[in-house]
């Protein structure tokens, strides 16, 4: 009896000690995780979930260069129409099955039906096959310059590789199985929507040898579990929890908490994403007054970046003006064409508006009241536009109503809109093809629906061009034209450092929220 009792005690102790030794990284993500299919939606949380459990063919390093990830090597035929990729050895899905070329082609096919850049790439693709388990080939109708950029794109939708049976899910339906070959395994049984999502270390994952950088390089895992706390959404409660050590990482804390976090014991701020975000004001090109390019230009001239940044971010060291529609500090960034905004002032804007023939039609601005990251932008836009001579109707609503309203093509008086403001992660706007606001295919393009044949022609040229210098020139031409047409107003850039406990190290520099290489001491 005594022996049995002692054995039971010993077992309990062993269980307790193994549990105690388990390293758990407790993260408060920037938003709630609701959708688990990163191909079906462009939501950032779904993308971040994707990075935990899936791997990618290519990644983008912190210097924005595309680097192989699952791919070992690749060749391109002299006419650049046949791309042959070899997968690196040791790739295995969480169910123990090896990753094959067939899994890859099925994944690319599904992604190509959802993602804007994927759709563009697929217009060039004639067919794909897998001649050997570790090889896949992409046959193109004609050469294009976006193959690696598309396969290595770091933000939504990321071409994650899924098992073929999962990737064969119709693109308009969400996947039911969440198995990848990435550094973490999703614990579906522990997922409680609105409460927590749990990821366990994938002990069989074979990282690349290179140092981690952005979404490229070795994905080394130094913790046993990562727990996303999805319930902790009150900004002050998040700061309190971090200060008390109840959580380890707080993604993108509110700017209002910045000074408090800087002074908090045991807490440090880490700017892991130096490229950060770009604010944007988007016009509805379908309805007056912004169906007139001259009125849009007057609005762009009035919407100087500094007031937006000062009001919304407020911390000087965290923001900067950027004349480019492409993220500043990235290859296509340029000031060309931006003079309408960067070299303008309110007097000029007033003159431009007078000359535009603006008839006093009220401008409906959508203002989200519950999204701290952008909720002050509409107030600034309203004030600046009023100063320029616009009549403004600022309408307050929750963010999800903004999301719904902006998709409506109705006239503003019938529930439509004239301007909404938003923020984009750097990779989402750093190229003419990823920047949704530069699409100008009329009603097929992103909300606002600008229509301009020249921009579309240039974007098509950009996709075809393989020479880097020429691509840069085309990107600049697109931007010049976009400012002329007034597709949207770039409103400056900002960074939003993570707040982390001081025993946390190794956060990988680059765009996005990834948790490999993170150490907890």
């Amino acid at each position, binding site marked *: 009896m005594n022996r049995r009792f002692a054995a039971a005690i010993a077992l309990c102790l062993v269980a307790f000690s193994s549990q105690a030794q388990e390293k758990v990284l407790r993260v408060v993500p920037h938003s709630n995780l*609701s*959708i688990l299919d990163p191909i079906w*939606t462009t939501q950032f949380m779904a993308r971040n979930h994707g990075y935990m459990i899936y791997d990618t063919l290519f990644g983008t390093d912190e210097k924005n260069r595309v680097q192989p990830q699952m791919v070992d090597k690749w060749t391109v035929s002299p006419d650049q129409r046949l791309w042959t990729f070899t997968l690196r050895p040791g790739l295995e899905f969480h169910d123990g099955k090896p990753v094959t070329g067939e899994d890859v082609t099925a994944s690319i096919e599904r992604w190509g039906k959802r993602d804007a850049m994927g759709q563009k790439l697929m217009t060039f693709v004639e067919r794909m096959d897998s001649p050997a388990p570790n090889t896949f080939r992409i046959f193109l109708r004609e050469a294009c310059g976006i193959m690696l950029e598309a396969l290595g794109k770091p933000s939504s939708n990321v071409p994650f590789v899924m098992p073929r049976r999962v990737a064969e899910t119709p693109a*308009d339906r969400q996947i039911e199985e969440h198995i990848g070959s990435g550094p973490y395994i999703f614990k579906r049984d522990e997922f409680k929507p609105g409460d927590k999502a749990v990821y366990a270390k994938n002990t069989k994952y074979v990282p690349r040898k290179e140092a981690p950088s952005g979404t490229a390089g070795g994905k080394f895992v130094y913790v046993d579990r990562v727990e996303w706390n999805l*319930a902790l959404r009150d900004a*002050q409660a998040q700061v309190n929890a971090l200060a008390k050590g*109840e959580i380890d990482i707080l993604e993108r804390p509110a700017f209002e908490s910045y000074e408090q976090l800087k002074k908090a014991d045991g807490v440090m701020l880490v700017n892991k994403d130096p490229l950060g975000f770009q604010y944007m004001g988007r016009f509805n090109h379908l309805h007056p007054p912004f169906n007139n390019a001259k009125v849009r230009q007057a609005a762009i001239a009035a919407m100087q970046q500094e007031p937006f940044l000062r009001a919304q971010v407020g911390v000087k060291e965290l923001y900067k003006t950027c004349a480019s529609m492409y993220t500043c500090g990235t290859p296509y960034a340029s000031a060309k064409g931006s003079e309408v905004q960067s070299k303008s002032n309110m007097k000029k804007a007033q003159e431009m508006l007078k000359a535009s023939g603006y008839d006093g039609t009220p401008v409906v601005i959508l203002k989200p009241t519950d999204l701290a990251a952008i909720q002050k932008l509409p107030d600034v836009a309203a004030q600046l536009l009023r100063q320029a001579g616009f009549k403004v109707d600022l309408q307050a609503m929750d963010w999800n109503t903004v999301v719904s309203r902006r998709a409506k093509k109705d006239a503003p008086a019938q529930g439509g809109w004239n301007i909404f403001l938003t923020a984009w992660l750097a990779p989402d706007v750093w190229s003419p093809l990823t920047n949704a606001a530069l699409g100008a295919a009329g009603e097929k393009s992103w909300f606002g629906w600008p229509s301009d044949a020249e921009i579309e022609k240039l974007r098509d040229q950009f996709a075809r061009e393989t020479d880097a210098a020429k691509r840069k020139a085309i990107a600049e031409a697109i931007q010049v034209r976009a400012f002329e047409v007034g597709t949207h107003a770039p409103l400056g850039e900002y960074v939003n450092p993570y707040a982390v406990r001081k025993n946390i190290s190794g956060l990988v520099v680059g765009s996005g929220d990834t948790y490999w290489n993170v150490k907890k001491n």
Partner: protein
Amino acid sequence: MLRLTPGDPAAILAGDAASSEQIAAIRASLGLDRSLPVQFAIWLGNLLQGELGQSYFYKMQVTTLIGQRIEPTLALATLTILIAVVVSIPLGVIAAWRFGGWFDRALMGFSVIGFSVPVFVLAYILIWIVSLKLGWFPVQGYRRIADGFFPFLHHLILPAITLSVIYIALIARVTRASVLEALGEDYIRTARAKGLPEMRVLVRHALANAAVPIATVIGIGIAILIGGVVVTESVYAIPGLGRLTVDAVLARDFPTVQGVILFFSFVYVFVNLLIDLSYVFLDPRIRY
């Protein structure tokens, strides 16, 4: 009413960079392109088969979602009411007993403050003092009872205290008023004339006869707590039904909203039934 607001779950689901075509396709896949009466008839048909439907966002059965959130909310409501009853009834009885004295006035003053201070203000003050300065309790989170009773209680006690303040104020006021009324009755004078100890007079005669309104307030409090602890759940990061409801409303997750509203309605009806039944035990004169 929610259907009349401009929100579109398909646009929310699709994400920032979605095109209008993608949103339209999602709308069709969710059946939102059908007329409202048709959608309601489908929901009603499923309900008759015991199905509350599937959440648009989580792709989980609404019953499962509610099941996941019941424990935190029920635990918080129970502990809150427990604290409120244990504290407020004696306070109310003493205040009535010492009507007009300093204790009575202090309690009335406290109850005004208790009603007036917003829950989130009280929560932040308590967190600052009790959690951050003294380090007695965690600042956020919930532990399921299956994870152990001590962690469960340790995480729950501060939110329950926060939430109980308003109920202490409410129940204490009602108790005071009811007991005060009872203390003026002839049977109290008779009891005292018979030489019964004052404690027995207060508890056995005054409180017992004042129990019906007190039970009513407690019952209503439970019903309100089940569905209305959103602020407390937010500040303390408790994944309960209140947060689920708010999230579902904001996301226009219609099946979840309909499911939780139905559940809340059931709880209200059930609790009211229990209150009505309790009158029989509290006051033998009542017959149904």
